Structures are given as structure tokens and as C-alpha cells.
């Protein structure tokens, strides 16, 4: 008997083909595969905890006990708690993902990375703190990095808040100024003529080069740092906004004019919305620059902030504190980027499915 596939037409019916294409977009993960990857995700971190508990502390490292809210904690116990919390978090995400094929695929896809992350933590812990194989005091283990949060959590929080305040004041000002001047430069050729060269010339100068001026010209160091952040964000946002406004298709403006639009409507409802993708590119670039400038400014003359904390710790060779500050930055800045990304997705929702992402 001939094989069925030989008799059936080789090209599937259009509907079938379409369905197949839809299914191809996200890989289907079976329950079994999900279980395996779920376990894989959690096992990595479990190994990290086990390594911390069962590997003997060989090197001579002082392990102090701190009392936090009635609990006696060492950095090791805090590390286990934090890693345990990570496990619980991934467990929750994993179970949540089980019920949606897209999320399941996403969770499964990330499982190997998370597994290795746990193993790396374990290896780092053993070589960093347990055996002191890594050059000290530059590379303390991951558990040790958490110690500053036991020693001086309120001081770190104070510095976080200082950095956040500085960032938000400086960054929102640079967004407002950048978009404002960008629109004027992009729309009015006279403004372009007079101000674009200025923007071009000052824009290439790294903001921190203005530091000596800023520190002497502004009454408080906070204002000086705000000035630096504004300067660095403003250029990127203004130039991309101007480019976006200038690239408005003439036809779109003509359409609007035949519908009775005057200048204000043309700018606000035609030029700006269609420039939004570029404006957001400017904003995301500016975010990166702003982080750099923020930390630099803090390290060079601020009475607070995460950069200040790094500087302070460096003086005492407390590199575990430097790492703690870096850890906070990583989390904080990723969160800020994420929030900006969400705002972007919301504002540019009309692009969804239209542009390649």
C-alpha cells in the first residue's frame, strides 16, 4: 500500500497553512517540557543556597551577626533568604506561565539561563568568600555583597532616594526642554538656522566637562548635578525630536490642511505624533547618558547618592559596598528603563503590528 502522504497533496490548504504559521510564531511547549524547565530554573538557585549552607567556610572571614527587626541575621542567612525569595518568585512566574502558551514558551526559553545563573552564584560564593580564591578585597562573594544592607540599610536607602530625586528632576527637565526645543528647531526654519548649530556644537561635549562651571555657578551641588543631567539629555532628545519633526511627510501635512488644520493642529496632531518614534529613541538614549552623568556627578561632588556611596566605600577599601551600590544601580536603572519602555509601548501602540520590532 502506498504511503498516505504520497496520495495527499503536498501543499496544505490555505487555512491550514495559515494556522501552521500562527502556531510557528510561538513554539508549543508540552506539560512535560514545562515541568523539566520549571525544575531546571529552580534547581540552579537551590544549588546556590546549598553551596552556601554546606560548603565549609575555609578562609578567615569575619561573619558578624546583625539584629534586624528582631531577627538575628548574618550575611549568609540574608543571602539564603534573598535567593529563596528569588526561587519563590520564579516559582510563581512559572506556575502563572503554565496556563498561557506564549508565556510558557518564554519561561521555558529562559530556564537554561536562570539555571546557569544559579550555578554561577554558587561558584562565585565558593571562590569569593568560602575559599577566598578571587583577588581580595576586590571580589567578595555574592553573600558578602548583601552585608551592607544589614549594616546600613537606612543610609543606603537615603542615597538611593537622593539619586532617584536627582534623576527625576534632571531627566524630566531634559525631556521637557529637549522636546520643546526640538519641536521649535524642527518646525521653524529660522529657529533651526540660529539654534541648530549651537545644539550641534554643544551636544558633542560630554556633560561632565561642564562640571567645574556647574559646581561654581550653581548655589547647591544638587542644582549643579541637575544642570549636568539636563545638558546631557537635552542634546539627544532635542536633535532626534527635530529630525523627527523635519521628516514629517509633506503629504500628511497637506491632508491635514485640506481638512482645515492650522499651524497649531499641524504641529500637535500631525508632526509630533509621527515624530514620536524618533522622540522615544532620543529619550532612551538620553536615559543612558543621564545614568552615566548622574553617577559621575555624584562621585565628584555630591553630598549623597549611589555614586557618593561608592566613593565613600572605595576610600575604606570596602569593595563589597561598592558592589552593593552597583547591584542597586543595576536593579534601579533596569526598572527605570522598563518603565520608559512601557510608556513608549503605550504611546506608540498604533505601530504595533505595523513595524518590525
Amino acid at each position, binding site marked *: 500500500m502506498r504511503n498516505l502522504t504520497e496520495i495527499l497533496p503536498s501543499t496544505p490548504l490555505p487555512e491550514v497553512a495559515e494556522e501552521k504559521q500562527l502556531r510557528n510564531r510561538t513554539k508549543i511547549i508540552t506539560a512535560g517540557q514545562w515541568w523539566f524547565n520549571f525544575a531546571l530554573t529552580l534547581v540552579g538557585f537551590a544549588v546556590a543556597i546549598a553551596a552556601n549552607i554546606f560548603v565549609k567556610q575555609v578562609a578567615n572571614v569575619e561573619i558578624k551577626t546583625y539584629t534586624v527587626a528582631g531577627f538575628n541575621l548574618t550575611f549568609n542567612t540574608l543571602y539564603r533568604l534573598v535567593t529563596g525569595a528569588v526561587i519563590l518568585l520564579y516559582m510563581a512566574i512559572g506556575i502563572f506561565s503554565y496556563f498561557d502558551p506564549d508565556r510558557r514558551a518564554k519561561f521555558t526559553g529562559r530556564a537554561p539561563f536562570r539555571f546557569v545563573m544559579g550555578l554561577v552564584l554558587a561558584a562565585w560564593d565558593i571562590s569569593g568568600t568560602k575559599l577566598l580564591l578571587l583577588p581580595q578585597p576586590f571580589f567578595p562573594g555574592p553573600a558578602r555583597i548583601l552585608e551592607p544592607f544589614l549594616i546600613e540599610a537606612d543610609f543606603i536607602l537615603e542615597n538611593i532616594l537622593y539619586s532617584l530625586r536627582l534623576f527625576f528632576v534632571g531627566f524630566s527637565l531634559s525631556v521637557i526642554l529637549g522636546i520643546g526645543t526640538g519641536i521649535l528647531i524642527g518646525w521653524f526654519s529660522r529657529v533651526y538656522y540660529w539654534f541648530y548649530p549651537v545644539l550641534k556644537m554643544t551636544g558633542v561635549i560630554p556633560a561632565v566637562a561642564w562640571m567645574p562651571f556647574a559646581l561654581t555657578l550653581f548655589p547647591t551641588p544638587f542644582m549643579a548635578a541637575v544642570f549636568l543631567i539636563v545638558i546631557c539629555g537635552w542634546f539627544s532628545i532635542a536633535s532626534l525630536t527635530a529630525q523627527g519633526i523635519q521628516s514629517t511627510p509633506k503629504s*500628511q501635512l*497637506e*491632508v491635514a*490642511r*485640506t*481638512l482645515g488644520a492650522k499651524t497649531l493642529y499641524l504641529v500637535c496632531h500631525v508632526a509630533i505624533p509621527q515624530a514620536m518614534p524618533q522622540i522615544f529613541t532620543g529619550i532612551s538614549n538620553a536615559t543612558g547618558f543621564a545614568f552615566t552623568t548622574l553617577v559621575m556627578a555624584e562621585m565628584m561632588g555630591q553630598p549623597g547618592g549611589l555614586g557618593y556611596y561608592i566613593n565613600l566605600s572605595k576610600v575604606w577599601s570596602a569593595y563589597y559596598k561598592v558592589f552593593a551600590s552597583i547591584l542597586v544601580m543595576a536593579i534601579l536603572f533596569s526598572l527605570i528603563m522598563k518603565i520608559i519602555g512601557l510608556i513608549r509601548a503605550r504611546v506608540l501602540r498604533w*505601530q504595533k503590528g505595523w513595524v518590525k520590532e
Partner: protein
Amino acid sequence: MSRNISETRDVILEIENVNYTYYDDYDNHVEALQNINLSVRRGEFLSIIGSSGCGKTTLLRLIAGLDKPETGKLTLNGQQISGPDPQRGYVFQQGGLFQWMTVEKNIATGLKTRRVYRQNKELVAHFIELVGLKGFEKSYPHQISGGMAQRAAIARALINNPEVLLLDEPMGALDSFTRADIQDKLLELHRENKTTMILVTHDVDEAIYLSDRIVIMTPRPGRISEIMEVNLLHPRHRGSTEFLHIRRSILEKLHLASAMPQPEYII
């Protein structure tokens, strides 16, 4: 070449001795329009037909007020046209919907620019229904088909209740089924609203199917060579003898019929 429009007919748009020349970057000049005279009657469906480069889109842009004539003048109801105005609605070749607005918001644009949106919100729903886009109010332009986008563009122009609707090859980029669908929609809108419509096209069948009069233009320099009345009752049948007769004569005027390949041998 002045033409006498019968005085009894009400003229809405008058085009007198209009010339228009394009200059390119190399100082070449192209006479896009030369000595154009045309009277458009109130409520008629007028088509302007001609090969590409004959200046038909230029003429439409002058009527819309997007460009200014070099010499001569255009008047709407006796008033000189000096710039774009919502009373001369314009539907562009590619529709030109704003990608960042939903269908509903696109259609409401004219009400918003004239600051009458609040009093006339229900008009939007009415026009969405009129062009058969109910259920797609919240869709973005890239989520709907080309035909639907073109219908939305027509609704967007019509919501301003224009005296003249200018159509610049609105069906040019559509497949023939969608095209026929929009043609019927246009006829229906024309019948119901009595809006004067001026259609620029290079499709002879489309012009005959829709128009009361057809203006035939020839290129280099762009000028009107002939104005033809189409006295056929609606609905018109594309295969009828009269239809084909008119088609033949238009093609001849456009010098297309004579350019058709001749048989090489005759048995």
C-alpha cells in the same frame, strides 16, 4: 478654445486661463498646465482623464488650494481660491490616513480642526456607518484593508460637508473588486449628498461608469483637449453598446486607439 456652458446650469467652480509651470533643480521647466478654462456645474460628477504627466493632479491640487496658479484664477461660488479649505474636500491617492489615529479619530479630524467636534460627535458614527466601516472604529489604519482605508479617507473628507469633493485617483492602488465596490459607494454618496465631485483618473472605464462629464487632457503641455458629456442612465453597464462606444471615442481622443497594434496580415 472657450467653451460655452449653458447659462441655465449653475456653475460652482470656475477655472479661468490657468497656467502652471514646474521648475526642477536643473532649471528645466515643465508646462504642467497651459491655458486651462473649465466650469464645473453644481452637483455634477466630473472626471478628468489623461495619461500620466498631463497635469490632471496639478489641476486638482490648484482647486484644492495646495498650489497657486502662475497666472489665471480659480473661483468657488465667485470667491477666489487662496488656500486649502475643508469646503473643498480632498481624497489622496494613497488615502493618507494618519497612522497614529484610529479610524474613528481619522474621520473626526475635520470636526476637530474646525472646533465643532463637541456639538457633532454623532456625525462620526453616521459617516462610519455611511462608508460601511462599523465595527472598525477603533482599528488603526494598518489593521484594515486598502479599500477600507480609502473609504475611511472619503468619509474623513465628507464629514466637513464639502461643496466639492476632489478625488485624486482614490482607486488607483486597489484591486478591481475593491475598486468596483468603492465606485458604487461613490455613486451612492453622490446621489444622496448631491456633492459636486471631481475625479482624477487614468482609468477610462471608471470615468465613464461614474461621470456626468469627462474632461480629456493631453500632456506636454497639459491642456484640455475635449469635454465629453456622458448621457447614460445609472446604473451603467460596462458592457453595453453605448458604454463601449463612448469608451472607443475617448481612447481615440487620447490617441490610444490608433496606437493599438495593427494585424500584420489579413486573410
